[in-house]
């Protein structure tokens, strides 16, 4: 069937065009989308429009039907103008930065792309996707008053440095006849933390129960209550007080006693390499959640800590993420 063949040909050409326009190397942001980086090709509907117009124009020329010819040429002119307009929406767009909060492998990484441009030209509804590298859904970049950002959820698989895929910004506006697109390949280091082990042994360094038992007498004296924050350990919730005040309250200890623990690589022997990293990652998270001071000891590295707080946790997870792959 000719239609199917034409469609295949179109997809082929389109795929080739995409390959040719892809950048070879990543670049450091900020980057400006200049005219040489923006490509415009008709969409499938645009081709249909062109073929339909061509038919009409051929007929009009043959019959010397001037009103039809004029109308057809005006439509063709508007189509061409829409090509230029599509290109204009991307050109001179500046991509300032791309960043993302590190996540555990397996969780989607929320990449934020910040863009800026001279205000005045309408740049809305720009589609941002990862060029089919993964099945991440596209997101929309809207610029208001010359600035805007877009979030793209990228699936992650393994810990370590995350290669930001080639990002594609495209638009089919204003008429849907042509797609203008440009690639950005930000050279932004993004980290993916190891996946924490879902179920595993409790924190080492004193049994969990005794640690709790020791906490209680001390806590009775010094603790005060504060409102629940996401990430607080469940055992820290003061259920009775919570019930009384009708909101979740958490006991806070000024100085949890005896909670300092050592998370040692060598203490996790007996399981696979990646499994050990996962277990340590889980322990790091758990210790941090419980507000305990901990030290992470990895082979061939100086021990991290003992310390606590988000930056310590990130330092530990980063060290775990960057453990060499075997």
């Amino acid at each position: 069937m000719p239609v199917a063949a034409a469609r295949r040909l179109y997809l082929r050409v389109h795929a080739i065009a995409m390959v040719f326009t892809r950048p070879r190397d990543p670049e450091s942001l900020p980057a400006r989308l200049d005219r040489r980086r923006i490509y415009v090709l008709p969409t499938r509907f645009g081709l249909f429009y062109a073929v339909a117009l061509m038919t009409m124009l051929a007929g009009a020329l043959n019959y010397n039907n001037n009103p039809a010819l004029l109308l057809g040429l005006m439509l063709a002119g508007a189509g061409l103008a829409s090509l230029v307009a599509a290109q204009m929406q991307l050109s001179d767009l500046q991509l300032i930065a791309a960043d993302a909060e590190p996540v555990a492998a397996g969780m989607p990484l929320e990449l934020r792309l910040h863009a800026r441009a001279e205000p005045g030209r309408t740049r809305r509804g720009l589609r941002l996707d990862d060029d089919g590298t993964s099945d991440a859904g596209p997101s929309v970049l809207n610029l208001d008053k010359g600035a805007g950002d877009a979030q793209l959820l990228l699936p992650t698989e393994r810990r370590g440095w995350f290669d930001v895929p080639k990002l594609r910004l495209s638009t089919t506006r204003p008429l849907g006849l042509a797609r203008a697109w440009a690639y950005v390949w930000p050279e932004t280091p993004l980290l993916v933390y190891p996946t924490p082990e879902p179920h595993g042994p409790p924190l080492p360094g004193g049994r969990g129960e005794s640690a709790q038992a020791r906490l209680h007498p001390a806590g009775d004296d010094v603790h005060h209550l504060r409102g629940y924050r996401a990430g607080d350990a469940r055992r820290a919730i003061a259920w009775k007080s919570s019930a009384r005040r009708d909101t979740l309250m958490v006991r806070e200890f000024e100085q949890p006693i005896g909670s300092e623990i050592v998370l040692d690589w060598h203490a996790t022997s007996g399981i696979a390499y990646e499994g050990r990293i996962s277990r340590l990652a889980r322990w790091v998270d758990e210790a941090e959640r419980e507000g305990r001071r901990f030290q992470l000891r990895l082979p061939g590295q100086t021990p991290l800590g003992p310390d606590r707080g988000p930056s310590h946790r990130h330092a530990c997870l980063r060290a775990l993420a960057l453990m060499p792959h075997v």
Partner: protein
Amino acid sequence: MSRHAPLPLDARTRAWVLWSTGASLLPLLLQLPPHLAAAIAASAVAVTALSWRRPIPGLLRLLIALVLIAIVLMLSRFSIGRDTGCALLAAMLAVKPAETFTLRDGRSLMGFALFAPFATFLLDQGPVSLVLGLVAVLLVLASLQRMADLESGDVKAVGPRQRLGGVGRLLVVGLPIALAAFWLFPRVASPMWGIPERAMARTGLSDRMSPGDWIDLMSDDTPALRVRFFGATPAPAQMYWRGPVMWDFDGRTWTQPRWRPGQAQASTEPGGVRWDYEMEVEPTDSRQLVALDLPLDAPGGAYLDPDHTLQAFRPLNSISRWRLQSAPPARFDADLPLAERRYALALPAGFNPRTLALAHQWRAQAGAGNDAAIVNRALAWIQRDFAYTLETPLLGRHTVDEFLFEQKAGFCEHFSSSFVVLMRAAGIPARVVTGYTGGYRNPLGDYWLVRRSDAHAWAEVWLRGRGWVRVDPTAAVAPERIYDTLESRSSAGTGFEGVRSFGDVTDWMRRGWNDLVVSFDAQRQERLLSPLGVDRLDWRTLIALLAGAIALGLLWMVWLSRRSERERDPVLRAWHRLGRRYRRFGLERMPSEPASTWVSRVAAARPDLAAELGTLSQHFSDWRYADAQTGERSARALTRALRAHRPPATSPGERR
């Protein structure tokens, strides 16, 4: 490209698409026969209403489509032609909304809807079709824009005016290229394939005439031709635009003979007057041309039949122009060949006995040689006893008898037909001639307009020594009904020379449009640059010119698109301009600089300006960020104040 599920159309977008389809359908329907158009319009409305909430099942859809096709074919009596094809297109467009629910459906519907205005132009190239076609195109593009917005995931609530404005902008940006291609793209001199004929005839002169069948034509006020005279202009009573000449009569219908090609033309001897004129002929879909009685020679692209009727080589599908010279004949076919004489005397047997009897009686009274006396007697009788009316009863078998002896009232068809039968019965060769008479002079542009309603039928009788002589029995009864002149139609009686009637202006514009656009063709394209001294443009030059023009057009496109959009808010616009006025001092406001920072920067460099600018900036900030004065009036006052502020080039201190 998109691997995701089809994007459904939201209600507003769908409404846009459906309205655009309706707008595209409208001009086409107006050109189709009314019953057909009504049927299609009704089914379009019904289908749209049925499928408004949920889709119509596929089988039902197919059924509706088939029924509609059947209706169209039946109403057009299964004759396939240009108009039938257009009707089928309209029918398909009418059914299509039933399956328009996703973005893809919407786009394909819009793509097909674009064919409708084009189909309209195959049937009619008039101003109404053009305006409606433009409106349809604008709406279709606006729908496409709306769908693209939907696809991009950023549907803002844009008002219809703004949306049409955006689309209009695209059209304007593309216009130079479109116009360049229109004038410069090499045209084909002769069509590569023929245009299908219309299956359903429209009113106009044809090769047959039976008394009473012109009622529709006589009320059709659309133009048939426009004429410009160079030099002498004939008197209205001389304006006989001679068309088909009918020889054959079967008792009811007169028909034009089919002459064999190459048959000898009648010899003519032109009279003293010459009329030199150019006709702009509206499309008729037949090859028949008219010419002022009598054309001296056939213009290029046409030929003369033996009875001096003008035929074009190709059907007149579009507006055509003909430069002609005519002269009233002094002698026209003075020696009639015997075969033609017999032909011009033939009458069907068994019809109109009373007329035959009367003719024999007149012949006996007049004697053998005196044909002119019989003609005059008949004219005198008609003038005395007959009346002009458009309300005529259907005639029975003996049409001429019934008209001459019973009704005694009718219009040109009856008069000419009966007169010719009477003459033939009396032994005088005679034939019916159809065409147009008179015309209306449009003072605007100085040309004559002949309408279809000016259609007329008269007679020619052959008299010894003079040949064929035009005799108009209707003119003997009601000359005012025939010679449609300036006095009878325009408001000349009012005495206001400057006041032109609306019709004058519209027809003049129409003529200009025809002149400039509709009748542009390969020949005129060749002479496009003749005012500049280039006699002939061949296609290579055209292509080169076109390439240059397109390059310029593209530059214009880019320039126009690059010009950043004008700030809509007048206050903001005035504020930005104010900031730019400080550029020459190197104190221009930076795009992201807050007003207060800027003012203090200016104050540091130019203390003399600080007070005034500070006040203005304060007002501006109040207007922009405080809710206090957001009225229309305060905005206008602020705009005025911002516009009025001109920083003097030098501070008063420096001036001294």
